[in-house]
């Protein structure tokens, strides 16, 4: 029972959706199902929130390393949740969008989440530089190809590329760095992208079929009890 029912559900629903594409009266089925999916996902949020509380409360009570910081997490979580769920400090009251302009929730977003998220993201600028320094070395043939392609594209995105290769006559102008960069993007890059995409497309199709047919079932976990 414990294994068969989920496998049957997957099979049934999967098949239903595949057939709905070919049968016009069932077209809207897919739409409804995706809304269902989101509603279930919201329930899962609460599962996640519960786990977050558990992890940090246990860190706090057992005084594990860095337990002080768990207070910050718990406080931030509680305050934001209360403000968000009860729309506290929202000028429009309950009818307004939760992120209405001027609401406390939006302020939290603007002055706490945005700076944190955007700064975390912007660290990439530094990491891209350190990664190119560390890893773009002509160690072997593959690495050299990678390095050369990256180098040409980088040069092509600066006026420097034009300055260095601007003297190349028009009949050879594909060798000018900006043109070469565009050519690499449009020809070999396109080929590589497409090969990967076809492979992934095929892999997804085959994996989906395996899932529907119940061949791939790790995601259900094994039942040992």
């Amino acid at each position: 029972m414990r294994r068969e029912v989920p496998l049957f559900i997957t099979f049934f629903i999967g098949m239903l959706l595949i057939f709905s594409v070919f049968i016009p009266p069932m077209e809207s089925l897919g739409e409804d199902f995706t809304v269902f999916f989101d509603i279930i996902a919201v329930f899962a949020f609460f599962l996640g929130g519960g786990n977050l509380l558990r992890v940090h409360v246990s860190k706090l009570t057992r005084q594990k390393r860095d337990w002080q910081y768990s207070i910050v997490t718990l406080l931030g979580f509680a305050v934001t949740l209360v403000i968000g769920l009860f729309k506290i400090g929202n000028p429009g009251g309950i009818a307004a969008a939760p992120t209405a302009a001027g609401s406390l929730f939006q302020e939290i977003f603007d002055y706490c989440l945005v700076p944190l998220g955007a700064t975390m993201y912007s660290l990439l600028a530094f990491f891209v530089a350190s990664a190119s320094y560390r890893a773009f070395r002509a160690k072997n043939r593959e690495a050299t190809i990678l390095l050369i392609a990256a180098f040409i594209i980088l040069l092509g995105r600066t006026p420097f590329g034009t300055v260095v290769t601007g003297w190349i006559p028009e009949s050879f102008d594909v060798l000018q760095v900006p043109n070469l960069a565009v050519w690499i993007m449009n020809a070999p890059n396109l080929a590589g992208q497409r090969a990967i995409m076809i492979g992934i497309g095929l892999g997804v199709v085959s994996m989906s079929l395996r899932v529907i047919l119940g061949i791939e079932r790790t995601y259900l976990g094994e039942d040992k009890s």
Partner: protein
Amino acid sequence: MALYKWFFVLGFIFCLCGMATAQESGVPPDSANIDTISQSIPPPAPVTDLQAFDTRNDHGHSITLKWKKSADDGAGNNSVIGYEIYTWEPNMVDSMAQLRSEIDQVRAAIYGGKKTGEDLKKKIRTLKDQYDILLEQLTVAHAGYPEGGEWRLVDKVPAGTETYVHLGSKEKLAEGYIPDYTDLYYRVDALTADSVVKTPSVVVGPVQCYGQWFNTEQVPVLITVILFGVLILYFVMLARKGKEIYVRPIGGIEAVDDAIGRATEMGKPILYVLGLGSVSDVATIAAFTILQRVAKKVAEYQTDLIVPTYDPIVMSVAQDVVKSAYYDAGRADTYKEDSVFFVTQSQFAYVAAVNGIMLRDLPATNVYMGKFYAESLLLAETGALAGSIQISGTDEIAQMPFFIVACDYTLIGEELYAASAYLGREPILLGSLKAQDYAKAAIIILSILGIIATVLGFTWFTEFFHVTS
């Protein structure tokens, strides 16, 4: 005043130019420009061969019209600037529209929260009952053509158009509702720059719309679905019978075992990051299989495993997977429930936390498998800084370069999916891998045929692959 008129004329011409490209009809001719344009335009030739039929491959409530354009459209007098589509409707649709707007008003009153003392819900019910009664009479009223009704404008289309799909709503309370199995009549008028000079076509009808049970446009997809399904089933059966199937070694996967051994020697934990995918992403499903393998080894070697997750559902699945792996290894007693935990469902907060774990717990090995976005390099560079061995795998093309550059081993796209079959070594999984390879061979052959067809100019071959939906 003169300037004002010119403004209109120019605007009108502008609109006409626009109509050639726009799907929507342009602005209707304004009364202001009637006297400015010469009224001496002769009536254009009507459209011919007007046909109306049910729109194929849909759920009904739609009629397709086809005609041959007027002789004065793009030729002859060249006076036709567009066409107007008319349908005949019984007069009772007015009362229906009236009822609809009343229903909307009452509804607005309900949301407005105004207390009128009236039972608004009851009122809506009464109105809707009235509406339903009218709806039932609609088919009969349509059959009464041409008595008790009039022609109504449906839409305008630019010159040169020869087809139109009158797409109705299937919601009976919606404005553009077209009833199925009801006699409908259509007419197409050829328009000129002068809004009074136009020529109607002959009336076409009666025609009925209805839904179909099978969408024939999807036949190529269906054929592919069946072919692919048969291919997979065939190889799975073959594999079940015990036929040996070769799978080429995949570098990243072979490295996993070594990396776990290294972690054990160093007495450091292993970090397994499942990425930002949800449980429905194929990459995540593949990542679970690899997680199962890693967890089993970890249980055997008695190393620590850390699995921070981004999605709560992924968290619960990962917990099950890890737990069952410990059971399999016979180490159920050493399974720690805290090893798989939820961090947060926000991309960069998740990264911030995982980066913290990397620098504080100093795992010997970081494994990144699943869906990754911008965080790929943030994680991989921090991991490199912490001196960990890093193995990654994703099907996000944009992130592959970063993993390739910053990690020791990377599974590229399909390799990640294949890894689960490779690891499991179960004949049925390997069988589906073989089927995939055959599909790839088919693509290569098709592409070569396609190229030859393109060179020889056989367009039907390439057209076949343009699937509409």
